[in-house]
């Protein structure tokens, strides 16, 4: 065994791993906020409380040069995509690096289109850092190749078995040849891809290079924020100003909440109608706010068929540990107090058992733990009474988490 390991290590000298960026330093701040310590309070020196009061009051009146006011980022609401767009490069980097908000519109998650493009055009010389999209592409290609190889082996085995059973003469081998045709065809595709890349490179490389650099390399990408992310940044952190592109007006927290709630259902509700107490936006926002407050990095989890994913520090550090499904809960005492409310609660759509099994099994495949976040929904009257004050409205919703795990008596000993 030891000799085999030694052999394999000597046979394949590993290429030196490219240096990764220092993520711990890059993403040191958990939220895009600057925080400054207050002067120390010394119990034996009661006058120190005056220093604290002075620091608080002076920061309230005007910010000193060493403690600048928090940078507010500009964003605008896009009705077509029902998302909030941030186009300023500094804001995009700030929102991504501290807190992992949003997603690049031309990238898988981190906005890195520009880097990718520079690398593709050969404008960046060092090959050190690969973007995550490139790593993913490479990994997928390897996996595809592996699958092809496995299929070929399986076919060969099948053919050998058929030959042994005498169902196939020694000379003919329909399965493998067919497979090999496929490989040849795919190789042809790859070749054509390569020529395309080469052609584009030859266009860029000579004298037109500088021109192309300016013409093409405007950053075409923006950061997309999901409504609940934008609302969290705007309402809870107060560092995002969302503008309506049509009127150019800044949307206040209350306007923003109304807009997001009305457009979270399809078709969007008319402006004069009050949104339902359990519209998708408010349910998702309550859970998002809940987990953000507890220090998790929360990102949408559509690709794992859940509502939210919880990362411990962020997606660049580790995979998401938990997958959250938001489930409205109408079983609080107030819903049961009234017959009419009871009737409303019973007509709500309930998911079936197989649905839960499906959700759980998907998480099992990707080694995540499924969390059901039950949101206790307040009855309509109560919610409407509190709809003027956002804080009071959010207080009416409560979140309970339940972890679901598949437990088999035979396997989990």
């Amino acid at each position, binding site marked *: 065994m030891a000799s085999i390991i030694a052999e394999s290590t000597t046979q394949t000298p590993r290429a030196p791993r490219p240096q990764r960026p220092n993520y711990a330093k890059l993403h040191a701040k958990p939220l895009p906020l600057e925080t400054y310590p207050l002067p120390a309070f010394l119990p034996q020196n009661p006058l120190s409380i005056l220093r604290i009061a002075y620091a608080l009051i002076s920061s309230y009146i005007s910010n000193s040069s060493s403690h600048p006011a928090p940078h507010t980022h500009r964003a605008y609401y896009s009705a077509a995509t029902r998302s909030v767009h941030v186009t300023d490069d500094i804001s995009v980097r700030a929102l991504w690096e501290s807190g992992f908000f949003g997603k690049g519109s031309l990238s898988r998650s981190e906005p890195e289109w520009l880097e990718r493009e520079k690398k593709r055009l050969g404008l960046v010389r060092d090959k050190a850092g690969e973007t995550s999209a490139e790593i993913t592409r490479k990994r997928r290609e390897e996996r595809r190749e592996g699958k092809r190889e496995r299929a070929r082996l399986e076919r060969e085995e099948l053919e050998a078995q058929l030959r042994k059973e005498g169902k196939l003469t020694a000379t003919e081998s329909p399965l493998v040849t067919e497979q090999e045709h496929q490989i040849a065809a795919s190789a042809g595709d790859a070749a054509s891809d390569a020529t395309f890349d080469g052609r584009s490179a030859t266009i860029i490389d000579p004298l037109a290079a500088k021109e192309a650099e300016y013409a093409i390399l405007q950053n075409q990408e923006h950061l997309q924020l999901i409504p609940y992310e934008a609302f969290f940044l705007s309402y809870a952190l107060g560092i995002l100003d969302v503008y309506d592109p049509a009127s150019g007006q800044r949307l206040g927290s209350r306007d923003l909440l109304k807009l997001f709630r009305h457009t979270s259902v399809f078709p969007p509700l008319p402006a004069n109608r009050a949104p339902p107490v359990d519209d998708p936006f408010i349910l998702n926002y309550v859970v998002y706010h809940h987990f953000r407050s507890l220090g998790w990095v929360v990102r949408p989890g*559509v*690709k*794992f*068929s*859940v*509502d939210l994913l919880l990362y411990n520090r962020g997606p660049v550090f580790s995979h998401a540990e938990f997958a959250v499904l938001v489930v409205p809960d109408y079983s609080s005492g107030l819903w049961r107090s009234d017959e009419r409310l009871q009737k409303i609660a019973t007509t709500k759509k309930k998911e079936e*058992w*197989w*649905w*839960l*099994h*499906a*959700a*759980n*099994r*998907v998480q099992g*495949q990707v080694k995540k733990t499924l969390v059901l976040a039950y949101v206790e929904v307040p009855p309509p009257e109560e919610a409407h009474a509190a709809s003027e004050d956002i804080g009071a409205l959010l207080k009416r919703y409560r979140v309970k988490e339940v972890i679901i795990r598949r437990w088999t008596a035979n396997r989990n000993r």
Partner: protein
Amino acid sequence: MAHSSRDTVLPIPIFLSGGKHFIFSVAHASFLRAEYRIAGVLTGTLPQSPQQNVFLGLPLQLMAEEARLLVRRGVCFVVDDAAAHREGLRRLCGPDGEEERLQWLATLREMGLDAARARDAVSKSRMERALGKMETGRREQALRSLAARQQAETRQATPSEADSEDTLFPAYEQATPSPPSAPKPMSVSDDPNPLGVTPTTSHPPLPLPFPDDTATLPPAPPSYPLFAYLHSHPGSNYFSSPGLRFGCQYLVYPGDPLRFHSHFLAVGYDWDEEFDLLSLIGGGRLGTGVKKGFLIGGTEPGKAEEFAGHGDGEEGVRCFCIEWGGM
């Protein structure tokens, strides 16, 4: 197939008990499996190991969809088990059932007698075997003791050794003072006390239920058209089983589930039903992850009216198969 279609009397009773449909006969279960692609789920455990959850036995539980399909085909009819029992017992205990009851009691006594005779036969054969063994043992022992005595005579050995060897089987010596040449035949009385028999079936003593023409079709969930389409649409002919394990409504097999892996995870929707996009993603991921297709289907409105009255809702069903590409 042990139970061909000739042996089975149609229609077959399906017993509805506690809202679930059961088949209690092996012949019926295998007939439905072989002829009508209805596999069902075996749900019975042994009384000694109620916690077992693999290798289950009868009764066979059918999905409501399966029961509906079979009733519609006229292969089966549904019997309300509780009502049938009550009715049958009332008749049996009343004056009408006097003769039948006595006959049944006589049958029970006969069964008890048979059981007692069988028990006696077993104990008798066991005793014979034991006696035979003892006899050979005794013969060997006698030979050995004879040899030992001869040795003692020649070598002047101490008598205690021989004694101890002699009394190896003192109890046996006491029990059978005279060696029997052949095992004495056990006296079996012709009429032993009958054993108490607890009947394990309801039919008999109750008469087999007969189909009721006025009975309505068993109700089935809204995904029934998809089930019927996959089961019996020309060209599909799939086996379906409940899909709870895989997070879907039906697991669809291209042949007998004992021979094939399932090909699809099927979920039935109404044509205009709104469902969460997440369920589509989840189903696609799940299906592709276990090398199956995630299949959704529903009845297209215009098509259903076109075929109205011809089928049982399986006409006009369209299916779509979804695969997760990003793996």
